C-alpha cells in the first residue's frame, strides 16, 4: 500500500467512520477525527479509557480499515527490550558455532535474530499496524524506551547497527490509566479519551456486534447497563460484557425463559464479581423492568 492509498482511505473523518462501521466498529465523531489525524499527521494514536470501552477493538478495526496486519505488544510489569524489540537465538548461535568448525560464520545473521513486535513493525512499516496494549502496566523504563522508538522509528542493535523504518509506521497505544503516563509520551501522540457510549449508541453497538439480538432487546440492555454503571461497582461492566449479556439473554429467551427472567439468569455475563452481584441483585428486577419499559 502506498501513501496515496492511505490518503485516499483517510480522506476525511467521515470516510474513516464509514469504513470502521463496515468493519463492525462504531466510532463517534471525535474518535474518527482522532484516528484521521493520527494517520494523516503520521503520529501515534494514544487511546485512554476505562477497561472494556473498546480500545483494543478500535486498534483492530484501524488495522482492518487499512488492510494491514496487526502486531500486538501486550505490556506488563517488567516487560523489557528482549520482549519488545529483538532477541538473539543463543541456542542456534552456539550450535552454528559448533557446526562451523574451522569455517568463518556470522553468528549475527538474520537467521539468529528473533524479531519482537517493535522490530517486526519496523521491518515492514506499510504492511503492519503496531498496537502497544495497556502501556500503563509497564514500568517507567519501558515507557522511556518506547518514547525513543516512537520519536525516531529506529532500533539500534549493537552487533548489527541501526535499523530504520522505510516509512512511518502507524502505531496505536492504549492505556487503562491505572497510572499517569509521562507527559513526553502524551505530547508525542494524538490523544483520545474513550468514554462509555450513551444508551442509543451502545444499543447500536450491541446490534452490530452480537449475532441476532432484536432491536428492543439491545435497547433494553443498553438502558439497563447505563443504570448499572452509575453504581459504585468494583468492576463496572464494559461494552463487551453488555454484548455478551444481550446474546446470552436472547439465547435463554429462545430456550423458553420469559423476558425479565432471561436477563436475570444471564447476569453472570455482565457482572463478574460476587460482591457486585449481591449488591445489584435486589435492584436487578426493577432495573430490568424499567429498561424493558
Amino acid at each position: 500500500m502506498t501513501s496515496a492509498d492511505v490518503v485516499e482511505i483517510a480522506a476525511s473523518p467521515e470516510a474513516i467512520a464509514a469504513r470502521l462501521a463496515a468493519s463492525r466498529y462504531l466510532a463517534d465523531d471525535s474518535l474518527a477525527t482522532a484516528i484521521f489525524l493520527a494517520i494523516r499527521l503520521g503520529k501515534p494514536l494514544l487511546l485512554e479509557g476505562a477497561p472494556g470501552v473498546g480500545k483494543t477493538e478500535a486498534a483492530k478495526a484501524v488495522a482492518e480499515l487499512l488492510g494491514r496486519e496487526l502486531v500486538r505488544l501486550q505490556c506488563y510489569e517488567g516487560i523489557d527490550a528482549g520482549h519488545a524489540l529483538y532477541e538473539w537465538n543463543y541456542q542456534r548461535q552456539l550450535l552454528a558455532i559448533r557446526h562451523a568448525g574451522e569455517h568463518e560464520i556470522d553468528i549475527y545473521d538474520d537467521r539468529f535474530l528473533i524479531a519482537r513486535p517493535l522490530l517486526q513493525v519496523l521491518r515492514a512499516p506499510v504492511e503492519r499496524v503496531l498496537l502497544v496494549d495497556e502501556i500503563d502496566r509497564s514500568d517507567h523504563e519501558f515507557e522511556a524506551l518506547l518514547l525513543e522508538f516512537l520519536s525516531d522509528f529506529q532500533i539500534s542493535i549493537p552487533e548489527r547497527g541501526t535499523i530504520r523504518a522505510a516509512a512511518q509506521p502507524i502505531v496505536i497505544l492504549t492505556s487503562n490509566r491505572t497510572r499517569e503516563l509521562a507527559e513526553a509520551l502524551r505530547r508525542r501522540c494524538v490523544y483520545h479519551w474513550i468514554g462509555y457510549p450513551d444508551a442509543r449508541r451502545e444499543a447500536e453497538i450491541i446490534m452490530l456486534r452480537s449475532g441476532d439480538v432484536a432491536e428492543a432487546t439491545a435497547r433494553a440492555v443498553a438502558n439497563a447497563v447505563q443504570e448499572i454503571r452509575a453504581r459504585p461497582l468494583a468492576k463496572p461492566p464494559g461494552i463487551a460484557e453488555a454484548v455478551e449479556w444481550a446474546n446470552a439473554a436472547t439465547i435463554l429467551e429462545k430456550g423458553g425463559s420469559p423476558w425479565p427472567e432471561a436477563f436475570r439468569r444471564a447476569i453472570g455475563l455482565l457482572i463478574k464479581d460476587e460482591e457486585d452481584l449481591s449488591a445489584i441483585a435486589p435492584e436487578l428486577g426493577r432495573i430490568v423492568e424499567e429498561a424493558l419499559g
Partner: protein
Amino acid sequence: MRRPQNLRPAAAPFLGFARLLRRHAFHIAPEQVISFMQAVTLLGPRSMNDICEAALATLAPSPDRRGELEAHFRNYFYGDAKPSIEGEEDDETRVKDDRGAREEERQTIRQEKGGELSSALEQLSSRDFQRDADGLSPFRRKLVSALPARRSFRTTRTRSRGTLDLRRSLSEIVSADGDIPSPLLRCRQAVPRKLLLLIDVSGSMKLHTADYLKLAHAAVQGADRAEVFTFGTRLTRITSALRIRDRGQALARAAALVDDWDGGTRMGPTLLAFLSVPRFSAFARGACVVILSDGLERGSHAELEIAMRRFSARAFRLSLATPLAGDPRFRPATAALRAILPVLDDLVDGSSIGRLTDFILSLARPAPTADSIWKRVS
C-alpha cells in the same frame, strides 16, 4: 516536523489559544501547537466543532481537565462564558481563605472547651518543630529500601545463585574464541512495592491531619511509587501536589485541593468510591495500603466492611493506623472495628509521626495478623 515559514494571519488565533491554555497551567509543547494547526488545516476546518476536536486530540488534556479546556475553547473562540471561568477561580480562592479562617476559629473554640484537647494540641505543635528536622528526612531516605519488595520481570547481573545469562555469556565466548571462561549469571531484580496512603481528614482526626500530610509528603518524596488520597465526605487525590519538593508549598497546594476538611466521615462510601475507579483500584493491587483513620464510622458499617474486604483482597498488606491506639487502654471494641479486624493485616498506633514512620519502615518484616494480636491483648 516542519514549521510554517511565515505564519499567516488566519493562524494567529490558534497560537493565541495555546498561549491562553498555557497561562491556565496546561502543559503544551510547541510541537503540539504545530500539530494542532496542521490538524485544523487537515480537517478543513468545516466547522468550529472540527477545531475543538483538533484541539482535544493534539493538545491532549488529561481527562479530568477536558471540560476545562472545552470551556476555554468556547470562551476564546465564541467569546462567551469568560466571566464564569474566571469567576470560578476567584471563588475557589475565596473559599480557601474562608476555610482557613474557619479552621482557626474552630481550633480556638475547641481549645476553650476542654483542657485535655488543648493540651494535646500544644504538645503536638511543640513536638513538630523538633521532628521536622530529624524525624522525617531519615524516614524519606530509608523508605525505598524498607518497603517490601517483589520480584520484577527484569533481570540484573549477579555473581552467584542465578540463571545463565545467555546473551552476555555468548559474547564472552565469542570474544574468547570459543572458550567458555566462566558462565555469567543473572537473576530477577527486586522492586519495592507501591505504597498507598489514605488519610482521613474528618473532624475527629483534626489533631492529626497536619502530621499525616507531612508524613505523606515525605513518603511521596521518598518512595518510587506512592499515592496519597484524603477522604472525609469526599475522596481527593493529592499525590500530584505532594510531588513538589518544598514541603510548605506542597502542603499548601494539597490543602487547597481538599474540599472536605474537618467535616463528617463517610469512610465506607468514600473507600468504595476509591475502589470503583479502575485506575485507583488498580494501584491498590499488590501495594502496601495504609489507612490513617480512627475508624469511627457514623451509622451502619456494612459498606466499610465491604470496602475493607475488597482492599484486603487487592493489597499486599492492609494496615489501619489509628491515633486512638496511642492510649494503652485502647481495644478495637466498636462494632465497625470489630467487623473489619479479621481482614486487616495490622491495626497499629497512629498517634504520632514517630510511631507511624517506625511502622511504615517495618512493613517488609512479617508480623502476626491484627486479629491475633488484639485477641491476645483483650
